[in-house]
């Protein structure tokens, strides 16, 4: 299995995983439920080996956005703004504009303003606020909570912090673009590895994305990405079912319970890793020129 390479997936593998995600979109047949698979396909489309497909993706993004806008009560959809912001960022990065998507994001700002100070101080909301500002939708970024500040400062407490607190920590780090030194990166990568070994994929992948984006990725970080890469199945999905568990996942729909979230996590992680490595290469090239 390749490691430490920009090409985590071949062109054929990207196509197969995209096909799986597209099938998920068709299966749900609703613009709202289509956001997650579409987000995954956009992530895959940013990978160096992908075949350019941004015209198609942009059309689908517009369709999804139009579906949200035409909903009689969009607030009742409980949409997570982060994938929408991420999709919009990727589309913009390809020099494309989706006015319907822009319209949705313009609505998010006032919604954030209406939240209580306490909620606006949480990592998730701060990260959304920060990401919106970077896209040109300025909003005031609330200060982190006292508990979050303590956690950011006292790194020894990271070892015993529950997963929810660590997720909040990662959101704050991303919201404030706080660079992580080698030690911080190592600690968070080791914690991520432990979480991944216990199949706590969301928090494991989130910590890895955080260190790839803000830190100095090392061997432990690459091991974490390898862990996810090795969960790949022949049909492009990611994840292995525990068929012998007392409450097997297959009693629920295995796609929604395991394969789809894991595939999305994988696509997002590979995108972040590729961006991190491209950035390192660019910086190294600048260094050589200087």
């Amino acid at each position, binding site marked *: *299995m390749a490691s430490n390479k920009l090409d985590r997936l071949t062109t054929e593998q990207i196509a197969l995983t995209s096909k799986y995600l597209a099938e998920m979109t068709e299966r749900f047949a609703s613009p709202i439920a289509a956001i997650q698979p579409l987000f995954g396909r956009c992530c895959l489309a940013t990978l160096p080996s992908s075949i350019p497909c941004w015209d198609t993706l942009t059309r689908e993004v517009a369709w999804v956005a139009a579906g949200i806008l035409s909903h009689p009560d969009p607030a009742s959809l409980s949409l997570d703004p982060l994938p929408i912001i991420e999709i919009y960022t990727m589309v913009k990065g390809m020099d494309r504009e989706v006015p319907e998507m822009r319209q949705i994001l313009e609505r998010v700002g006032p919604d954030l303003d209406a939240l209580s100070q306490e909620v606006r101080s949480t990592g998730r909301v701060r990260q959304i606020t920060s990401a919106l500002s970077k896209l040109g939708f300025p909003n005031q970024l609330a200060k982190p909570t006292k508990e979050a500040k303590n956690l950011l400062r006292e790194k020894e407490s990271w*070892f*015993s912090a529950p997963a929810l607190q660590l997720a909040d920590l990662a959101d704050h780090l991303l919201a404030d673009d706080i660079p992580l030194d080698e*030690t911080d990166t190592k600690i968070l990568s080791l914690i991520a590895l432990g979480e991944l070994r216990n199949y706590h994929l969301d928090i494991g992948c989130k910590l890895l994305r955080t260190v790839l984006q803000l830190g100095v990725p090392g061997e432990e970080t690459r091991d974490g990405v390898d862990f996810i890469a090795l969960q790949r199945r*022949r049909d492009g999905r990611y994840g292995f079912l525990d*068929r012998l568990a007392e409450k097997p996942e297959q009693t629920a729909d295995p796609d929604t319970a395991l394969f789809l979230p894991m595939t999305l996590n994988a696509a997002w992680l590979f995108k972040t890793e590729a961006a991190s490595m491209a950035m390192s290469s660019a910086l190294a090239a600048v260094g050589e020129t200087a």
Partner: protein
Amino acid sequence: MLAETISDPMLRLCQAEFKCLIQELESAPSRTAFFDVGAVAEVLVLTNGIPEAEGLTRMLCDASARWLKSGLLEDLLMARVEFAYHVALLTYLAQSAASFSPSDVEVIRNLSEGRLVARSEIPVLRQHLIAAYFSGCGIHTEFGQLGRRNLTQIIDRRVLRARSDEFDLLVLLMCAQLLQLDRSRGYQGPRTYPQAQLVQAMRSGNTNWLPVLALLCSRFFGFPGHLCGAAFKSMEESIPAPGELLPAPPGNQIDSEYIERTERGLRLRSTIALALSLALPGETYGVEQVRPAYN
């Protein structure tokens, strides 16, 4: 005569039973059903050229190919290391089925090459250790050429496996003994895996493993300051009441097929490691690794 009166009906019975077993595994995979199929496969794989066994063998090969294609064998391979041998056997047999395609083994190949599955370092480590300890007593044990292995790579890749029980710690204990016995042979200590285990022990509140891992990291595998401080703090918080030993490791079974590891010994060894760490932090932590003579 015997074939018609005894053997043929017996084989027909076995075919019917085996068919039920195959259906059972397909409809509701279980540990027992899988090991039952494995037991049958161990005999059938040896019956090449016996016409009477062809029906049963064909049934098994076809079923194996279906399980390979559907991903069942991959799921089982990832579930427990104990299944790896039978998964390998069934994968081998699946190749004889008409429906088999070489791409069916792609995922198992990746898992094996990525060292996620089918690796059991304990027999290798144990053989090395027996040879090393006997050799230290002047007893030269001939195991044949054990070969050189890069223990760093072998053991560090365990970090990619979704598993955590006494095997994990045992591998590190054995590896540390080898390092202590002879560094001159070029063994290198793993780093990522022991440190990841230490962090996980802290996070999961595994007070039994923590002092042992701290001892191993400090003396053999590297113990950076950020880990050392946090580990020490966690250990101080888990000191047992006077007269008590540390508890046994939580959850997982503590017996393995290789060596029996019962609660009393595990509690005692961890309490010793904790006591030493607390009594001699300056010597236990941050000292040069000891290197006793080893011939």
